[in-house]
């Protein structure tokens, strides 16, 4: 039946000042949440967002060349600043390309908000073009994820996503946005307050436990503080440093904790674990009271569990209760924010009497220092890292890929500042380094950013050279070129009878300097320490463009100390010869 025109409800004019498309609400909300940069790649399902970005000037959109790189860049941006990283990708393959980056962020507790396009709600489930169940795919690798089904909820879902990503133990959150949600109009509310009754992380530690921890540390004969990435994520470096210095207790950091305690301080024992220092691993083995701060007793840290720090009474502070008592039994669990708990312990603790313990540690340090081999005619990998450390005065943001170069970079660069060491620890994602360095450099334009990468891992996302050139990102790429998948080769050499199956590139690597040239950027090569120094000095002087440095290093060098897999920390070896025994 036809309704007379006069009786039809008057349609609201679409230019109503109060009404915006979902895409516009998305951008307004991001801007309102303080987001200044997003890393993205367009496609059909997110075209409404790209259209809204076209004349928007509040938000900088960085066009990466691969969505995986986008997530790593957002991740690097976040690790350098503490702010959440934001990624935008289209439906289907756009979303699936983000998966490795999301899993990387999840394992290292990095706050990311990943926005993916989705096919319109009317066809979800129909195997529509470029449809993928990205909420299902990413469920185990996100802290929380959402499919927006009502545009009126879009804004609150986004606010929730940022709240969850950044509070408690941080982590990635994904929001899937069907195309019709981006086109439909709704009101932008601007309500900043977020309240999620089911999400209330414990912040303040339990006071009696804090008092017990303080007592144990004050009375300890051989105490040790073991600091993990939680101290960086929780921005507790100042608290940890003051505490350890006042009590004069030795400090070792995990791979993720590097920079939470300055390595220039006498209390620093450097990194522990599979490629940790001899003295850190021995201190862990022999200590009598262990204070774990935002660390999770990862298997690369503990070595064989029944040989791990057997005589210590353990105190564990962590914001995530599921990290406590997971691998190692703990006498004093403290669930809370390390930034609050450490000062609370500090207030009650007295410096323990531990001069004998220090004597023991000093003798370990004297007998088993980290070794940097040097030669005039070739570059040792350790020497390369040491020189980068010296030339940047320990003040650069170092971003690595995964492999031998990563472990040497962890050992031989002196980390004195937080958020200056960026690496994929938990997932060990090759390909992470270079795009993460781009993100870090964009976030911190006034800092030197050096990407120490391998010839293998760098090749996983070299497409990002175009991004670095386009945005004039002054990242310094230092390729430790050993013409092989060094870490794989090391394991094959030591544990598979030197059968180097598919791990040696030999002469099959590209000419990286020519590659830089093809992208229109500066590339330089060095094959001996003298050239290396010149190349590094030239590169560091360039402040407005990316530079690639190809360092040919000694190919056969292996990374030590090493705790062979299955061995206890104290069973670490320091050379190939020792390993064969």
């Amino acid at each position, binding site marked *: 039946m036809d309704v007379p025109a006069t009786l039809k409800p008057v349609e609201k004019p679409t230019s109503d000042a109060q009404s915006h498309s979902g895409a516009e609400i998305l951008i307004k909300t991001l801007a309102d949440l303080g987001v200044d940069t997003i890393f993205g790649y367009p496609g059909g399902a997110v075209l409404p967002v790209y259209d809204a970005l076209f004349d928007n000037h509040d938000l900088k959109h960085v066009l990466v060349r691969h969505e995986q790189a986008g997530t790593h860049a957002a991740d690097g941006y976040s690790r350098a600043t503490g702010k959440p990283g934001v990624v935008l990708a289209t439906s289907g393959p756009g979303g699936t390309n983000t998966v490795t980056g999301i899993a990387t962020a999840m394992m290292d507790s990095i706050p990311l908000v990943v926005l993916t396009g989705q096919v319109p709600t009317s066809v979800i489930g129909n195997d529509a073009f470029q449809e993928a169940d990205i909420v299902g795919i990413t469920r185990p690798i996100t802290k929380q994820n959402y499919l927006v089904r009502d545009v009126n909820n879009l804004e609150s879902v986004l606010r929730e996503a940022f709240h969850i990503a950044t509070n408690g133990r941080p982590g990635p959150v994904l929001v899937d946005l069907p195309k019709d949600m981006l086109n439909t109009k709704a009101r932008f509310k601007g309500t900043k307050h977020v309240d999620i009754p*089911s999400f209330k992380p414990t912040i303040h530690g339990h006071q009696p436990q804090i008092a017990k921890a303080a007592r144990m540390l004050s009375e300890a004969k051989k105490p040790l503080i073991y600091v993990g990435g939680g101290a960086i994520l929780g921005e507790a470096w100042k608290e940890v440093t003051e505490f350890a210095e006042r009590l004069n207790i030795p400090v070792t950091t995990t791979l993720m904790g590097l920079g939470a305690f300055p390595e220039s301080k006498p209390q620093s024992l450097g990194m522990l674990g599979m490629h940790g220092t001899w003295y850190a691993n021995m201190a862990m083995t022999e200590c009598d009271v262990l204070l774990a701060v935002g660390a999770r007793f990862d298997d690369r840290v503990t070595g064989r569990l029944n040989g791990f720090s057997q005589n210590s009474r353990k105190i564990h502070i962590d914001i995530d209760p599921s990290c406590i008592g997971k691998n190692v039994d703990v006498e004093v669990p403290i669930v809370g924010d390390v930034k609050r708990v450490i000062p609370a312990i500090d207030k009650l603790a007295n410096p323990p009497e531990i001069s004998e313990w220090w004597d023991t540690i000093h003798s370990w340090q004297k007998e088993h220092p980290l070794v940097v081999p040097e030669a005039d005619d070739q570059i040792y990998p350790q020497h390369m890292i040491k020189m980068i450390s010296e030339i940047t005065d320990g003040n650069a943001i170092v971003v690595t890929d995964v492999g031998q170069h990563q472990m040497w970079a962890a050992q031989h660069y002196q980390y004195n500042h937080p958020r200056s060491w960026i690496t994929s620890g938990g997932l060990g994602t090759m390909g992470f380094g270079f795009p993460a360095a781009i993100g870090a450099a964009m976030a911190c334009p006034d800092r030197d950013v050096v990407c120490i990468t391998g010839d293998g891992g760098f090749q996983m996302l070299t497409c990002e050279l175009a991004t670095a050139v386009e945005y004039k990102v002054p990242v310094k790429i230092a390729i430790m070129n050993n013409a092989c998948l060094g870490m794989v080769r090391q394991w094959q050499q030591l544990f598979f009878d030197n059968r180097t199956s598919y791990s040696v590139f030999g002469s099959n690597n590209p000419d990286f300097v020519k590659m830089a040239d093809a992208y229109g950027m500066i590339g330089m090569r060095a094959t001996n320490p003298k050239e290396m120094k010149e190349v590094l000095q030239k590169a560091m002087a360039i402040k407005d463009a990316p530079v690639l440095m190809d360092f040919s290093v000694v190919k056969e060098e292996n990374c030590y100390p090493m705790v062979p897999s299955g061995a206890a920390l104290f069973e670490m070896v320091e050379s190939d010869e020792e390993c064969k025994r």
Partner: protein
Amino acid sequence: MSTTVMTKDYRHTLSVLVKHNLNTFSRIIGIFSGKGFELESVTFASEAEPGMARITITTYGDEKTVEQINKHLHNVVDVLKVTDLTHKKCIERELAIIKVSTAKVGRPEIMLIAQAFKAKVIDITTDKLALEVTGNTDKVDAMIEVLKPYGIAEMSRSGSVALKREFQGAVNIN
């Protein structure tokens, strides 16, 4: 659900109050599959309060494992409350429908067993009886054991649902 031998001593019943959405439900199941925890039964249904649901999980593991399960459940953003009913006084019920063959012994004997377990006969065919039994899991297990020799043609169990008793003192009203 798993083929490993489970010890009854380690059985835990967890009652989980969540926001009612399938993503949350999948997340919770994902904890069990992804992290390798045991899952014997699970029920999921709406709560009286709109938008909320209750998941009742029966699982196996030592105290440490169950504590870990508890913590992981708590970490799911949409989980409001996890109660381990194992060491609490609780009201627990399960329902089972069992089709038993009457070919060997005839109906009266099966019906006697049903009576003993306060089970109801809910369907009769020429060679089978369908029985409905309600009780705690032990009772349902026991009745199944007794019926097995006669030939169970088909069976469907609901899995446990449970709530904490208001009064946690000594009581015994079944």
